[in-house]
C-alpha cells in the first residue's frame, strides 16, 4: 500500500452497500425434508432433491417463507403478494442442479430500512434496504482434505437463506459495523436465525466504491467477500478503500471485480472467478409456482412480531426511567431484556434490577460463557435476593456472595443465606456486643470521635462489619454508634 493513501483519504469518501446472507432457523431445507443441522458427517443430510438426482422436484418449505417474511417485516419492507423463484444458472461442483433457486426480479420484499443512529443534526441515519429475497444455499467444496482432488459436502446444499441487500447508503467502515450489529440485533429479536458467523449462518459481502467528497456520481465498485467477523468487514473496507484511493491518486482506474479478504495479511486479493462470464441466465423456475402470500397472512405475521429494538429502547426509557447506557446494554439481546424485565417486575425497582443485571448477572454469564437462556438462576430468585437486600435481611456484599452460589447451584437465596450464615444480623444485643469489642480495642479513636472527629465513624462501622463477617446490618451499627457517642 502506498504511503500517499492516508493523506489522500480526506479527499475521498467511501460508498458501501452490504449483502447479508442469513440462514433461516428451519428444521428442514428449503425444498426438501433433509435436516439443516450443522456438523453432521459429510453428505449425511442429503436426498434425491438436494443431490439433484434426475427426476427430483423442489417443494417449498412453508416455515422458511414465514421466517423470511418476519425478517422482511422487521426491516419495514414492503411484502409482495406474489414473488417468483428463479434459476440462477452456473456450473460449480458444489451446486448440484447447475443452478441455484433464488429470487430475481420479483423478490419477497423490497424497500425496507434500518436506522443506525443519528446524524449531527439529530435526524435519523436511515440505511435503505433494497430487497429481501429467499434462496437456497450451495454445498461446500473442500480443497485441502484429499491431495490432488476436491471433495464436496452437500449437507448445506438447499439450506434456506435470505439475502438482505442494502442501498449504497453507508459512508464509513464504522457505519457498516453499526449497520451489521443492529441488523443482527433485529434478526435476533425476530428469532429467524442462529446468526452464527462461524457456522456460516450469517455471511456478509460488501460492495464498495470511492468518490471525491461532494461528488454525486458513484465510482466503479468492487465486491469484497470472505469476511468472517464484523470487525473483519470493517478492516476489509478500510483496506479496500485505501487500495482504491491509491489507484485513483496514481491516475489509475478501478476495475470492477470480486475480491477476497485475507484476514491474516490484512489485504484483499482478486477471487478466482467461478465462470468466465457472470451471465447467470436467470429465468423463472418452472418447477415452482409463484409464491403467493395473502394480505391477511402477512398482517397476521406482522401482528405476531415481537417488540423490536427501537420500540423496546423507547419503552425502557419511559417505563423504567433508565439511562441510555443501561438501555443499550439491557436491550442488546431480547433475552437479556426479557430477563431484566422479569426481575424488575418481580422486585419492583427497575433501577436496582438493571444495576444488578448489568453488574452481576452479565459478569457471571461472561465468565461462564453461557447464553442467558441457559443461565440456571431464575429471574424471580434474583428478585427475591434483591428483596432481601432491600429489607435488610442480607447485606449487599453478602448478596453478591449468595448470588455467586446461586449461579453455581441454582439453589434459592434464602437457603444459601441460611446455610452459609450470611443472613444479616439486626439483633440489638449481638450488635451491641460487637460494638463493645470494637470500642474497647480503639479507646483513643473513640475519644477523638466523641471530640468531634466525625469522619472516624466509618472506621468503627467498618471494624464492626469485619468482626461480624459482613453480617452486621450497617444501618443499625451506624445508629448504635451515634447513639452511643451522644449518650
Amino acid at each position, binding site marked *: 500500500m502506498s504511503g500517499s493513501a492516508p493523506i489522500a483519504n480526506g479527499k475521498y469518501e467511501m460508498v458501501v452497500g452490504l449483502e447479508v446472507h442469513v440462514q433461516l432457523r428451519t428444521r428442514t431445507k428449503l425444498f426438501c425434508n433433509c435436516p439443516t443441522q450443522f456438523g453432521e458427517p459429510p453428505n449425511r443430510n442429503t436426498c*434425491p432433491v438436494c*443431490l*439433484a*438426482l*434426475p*427426476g*427430483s*422436484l*423442489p*417443494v*417449498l418449505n412453508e416455515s422458511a417463507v414465514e421466517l423470511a417474511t418476519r425478517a422482511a417485516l422487521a426491516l419495514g419492507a414492503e411484502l409482495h403478494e406474489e414473488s417468483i423463484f428463479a*434459476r440462477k*444458472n452456473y*456450473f460449480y*461442483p458444489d451446486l*448440484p*442442479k*447447475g*443452478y441455484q433457486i433464488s429470487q430475481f426480479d420479483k423478490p419477497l420484499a423490497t424497500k425496507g430500512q434500518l436506522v443506525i443512529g443519528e446524524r449531527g443534526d439529530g435526524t435519523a441515519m436511515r440505511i435503505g434496504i433494497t430487497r429481501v429475497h429467499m434462496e437456497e444455499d450451495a454445498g461446500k467444496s473442500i480443497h485441502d482434505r484429499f491431495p490432488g482432488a*476436491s471433495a*464436496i459436502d452437500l449437507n448445506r446444499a438447499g439450506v434456506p437463506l435470505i439475502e438482505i441487500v442494502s442501498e449504497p447508503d453507508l459512508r464509513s467502515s464504522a457505519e457498516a459495523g453499526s449497520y451489521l450489529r443492529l441488523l443482527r440485533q433485529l434478526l435476533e429479536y425476530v428469532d429467524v436465525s442462529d446468526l452464527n458467523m462461524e457456522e456460516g449462518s450469517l455471511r456478509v459481502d460488501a460492495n464498495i466504491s470511492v468518490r471525491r467528497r461532494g461528488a454525486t456520481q458513484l465510482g466503479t465498485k468492487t465486491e469484497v467477500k470472505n469476511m468472517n467477523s464484523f470487525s473483519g468487514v470493517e478492516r476489509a473496507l478500510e483496506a479496500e478503500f485505501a487500495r482504491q484511493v491509491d489507484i485513483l491518486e496514481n491516475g489509475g482506474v478501478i476495475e470492477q471485480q470480486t475480491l477476497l479478504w485475507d484476514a491474516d495479511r490484512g489485504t484483499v486479493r482478486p477471487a478466482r472467478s467461478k465462470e468466465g462470464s457472470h*451471465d447467470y*441466465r*436467470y*429465468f423463472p*423456475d*418452472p*418447477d*415452482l*409456482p409463484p409464491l403467493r402470500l395473502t394480505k391477511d397472512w402477512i398482517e397476521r405475521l406482522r401482528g405476531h412480531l415481537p417488540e423490536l429494538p427501537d420500540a423496546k429502547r423507547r419503552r425502557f426509557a419511559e417505563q423504567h426511567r433508565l439511562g441510555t447506557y443501561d438501555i443499550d446494554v439491557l436491550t442488546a439481546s431480547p433475552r437479556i431484556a426479557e430477563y431484566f424485565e422479569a426481575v424488575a417486575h418481580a422486585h419492583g425497582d427497575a433501577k436496582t434490577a438493571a444495576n444488578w443485571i448489568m453488574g452481576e448477572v452479565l459478569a457471571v454469564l461472561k465468565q461462564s460463557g453461557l447464553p442467558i437462556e441457559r443461565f440456571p438462576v431464575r429471574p424471580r430468585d434474583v428478585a427475591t435476593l434483591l428483596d432481601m437486600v432491600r429489607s435488610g435481611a442480607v447485606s449487599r456484599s453478602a448478596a453478591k456472595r449468595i448470588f455467586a452460589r446461586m449461579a453455581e447451584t441454582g439453589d434459592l437465596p434464602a437457603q444459601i443465606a441460611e446455610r452459609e450464615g450470611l443472613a444479616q444480623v439486626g439483633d440489638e444485643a449481638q450488635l451491641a456486643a460487637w460494638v463493645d469489642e470494637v470500642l474497647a480495642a480503639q479507646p483513643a479513636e473513640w475519644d477523638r470521635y466523641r471530640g468531634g472527629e466525625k469522619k472516624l465513624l466509618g472506621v468503627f462501622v467498618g471494624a464492626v462489619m469485619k468482626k461480624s463477617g459482613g453480617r452486621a446490618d450497617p444501618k443499625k451499627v451506624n445508629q448504635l454508634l451515634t447513639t452511643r457517642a451522644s449518650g
Partner: protein
Amino acid sequence: MEATLSAAELAKRHALGSVAPAETVKQAFARASEIRAGPQGLNALLSTDREAALGAADEVSRLHREGNRPRPLAGVPVVVKANIATLTMPTSCGSRILEHYVSPFESTVVTRLRAAGAIVIGKTNMDEFAMGSSTENSAFGPAKNPLDPTRVPGGSSGGSAACVAAGIVRIALGSETGGSVRQPASFCGVVGVKPTYGRVSRYGLVAFASSLDQVGVFGRTVDDAALGLGAIAGRDRYDSTSADVPVDDYRALADRDLEGVKIGRPREYFPESLDARIRDRCDASLELLRGLGATVRDVSLPHTELAIPTYYIIAPAEASSNLARFDGVRYGLRVNAPALRDMYERTRSEGFGPEVTRRILLGTYVLSAGYYDAYYRKAQEVRALIADDFRRVFDSGVNVLFTPTAPTPAFPLGTRSDPYDMYLSDIFTATANLAGIPALSLPVGRVDGMPVGGQVMASHFDEATLFRVAYALERALGEDAHR
C-alpha cells in the same frame, strides 16, 4: 397375452384367478422375444427385468388369494419410457450420460401403477432426453416401427408406442413435451393421451422442459389408455405443479353417444398443404362423430403457426438449465481430466448426442443477457396468445377440437436429417403442450398401409369429455381404424 382382452378384462381375470398373472407376464416376455423387441430387432425395449416382474406377478396372485380388493390393473404388464424413474433397470433417458444410472427413488407414476396392480416389465427406447420425433436420437440406436421396421415409430416415446403396437403390453407410459406420445401413437396405430399439465405428477420424470413435460399413456385401445391414466392421475405433494383437481372416472362415459357435444374443426390444422389422404381420413371421422349426435363447426386458432418457433425457444431454454446437473460430479458418466472445466467439457461432449447438444446451445443462447427479452420473454408472450386461442374457442361453447395428429404417417428411418423438417412433425401437437390442455390421438385409418391418428383436444382438466369422444369414435370406426 390374449390379444382380444382389454387391460381391464385381463385385470379382472387375474383377480378372479382364471388367468395367472405370472402366465401373462411370461407371455409378454415371449411376445417380446418373438418379435425381437430388443436391441437386435425393433430396439423398442432397452432393458427388462424378468425376475422382478415374475416376483411381482406372484405377489399379485398372493394378494388376491388372501382376499384383497381387486385392483384395476392387477397383474397387467406395462412398460415405461426410459426417462421415468424405476428402482430396477436403468433410467438412461436414451443417453450415454445416464447409460448405467439406476434411480434410488421411484417416480410417482410408477408407484401408482404398481399400487394399482400393474407390473413394470421393461424400460423403453426414446430419443435422447426426449428430444426428437422419431426415436432415432437414442444413444442406443433407433427403435423401429413394428408395422414396418424400415420406418420410425415416431418419438420421442417411440419405444413405448412400439411395444404396445407389437402386442407386448396393452398399456405403456411415455412422456410429452411437444407431442412425444401422440405422434408415436399416430405412427404406430395405437392410442396415446397427453393429460392436462398438472394432471399427473412429474416426480421421477427426468425433466426436459418442466413447464411443458407431462407423463402420457399409451393404450392398445381408448379403454386401456383411460384405465392407465386413471391409475396415475391426481395431485402429488412431491410435485408443486401437480393440480389439486378431482380425478374423473375416465371410463364412465365409455358407452355414451355424443348428443349435445360440440366439436370444433380448427382450419389451421387442415392447411392446403396437408396430405389429402390424411385430411380425408379426419373428415370421415368428423362425419362419424356427427352421426353420433355431435355438432361440428369450423373454428380458428390463429396463432397455431407460431407454435413450433415458440416451442423451440421455450423447450431448449428450460432444457439448457434442466440438463446442467449432468456434470459428471455426482452420478452418470464422468470423463476425468486434470482441470474441472475440462472434466465438464469432456463429460458433457461425450455424454450428450448432437440433438441434445444443439438444444442446450440454443437454450443457453436464448436465455443470455441481451437476448432474453427478444427470445424467451417474447416466446412466453406468444405462448400466452396460443393458450388464449384455445380458451376463446372453448369459451364459445366448443367442447373438443378434432384434428390430424401428425402431418404424415411414419416416415422411413434416416430420412429427416434436417432438424427443422423433424421439428415440423409436431406442428399439430406442440400447441396442446404450450397451452397445457389435454389431447389424445387415436387411429383413424391407414395411408400407404401405415396408420394415421386423429387428435381430440379438450379444455383444461376435461379429460372426461376427451375420452367420451374418443370412445365413441373408436366404436364408430371399428375395424376401419386399422384399414
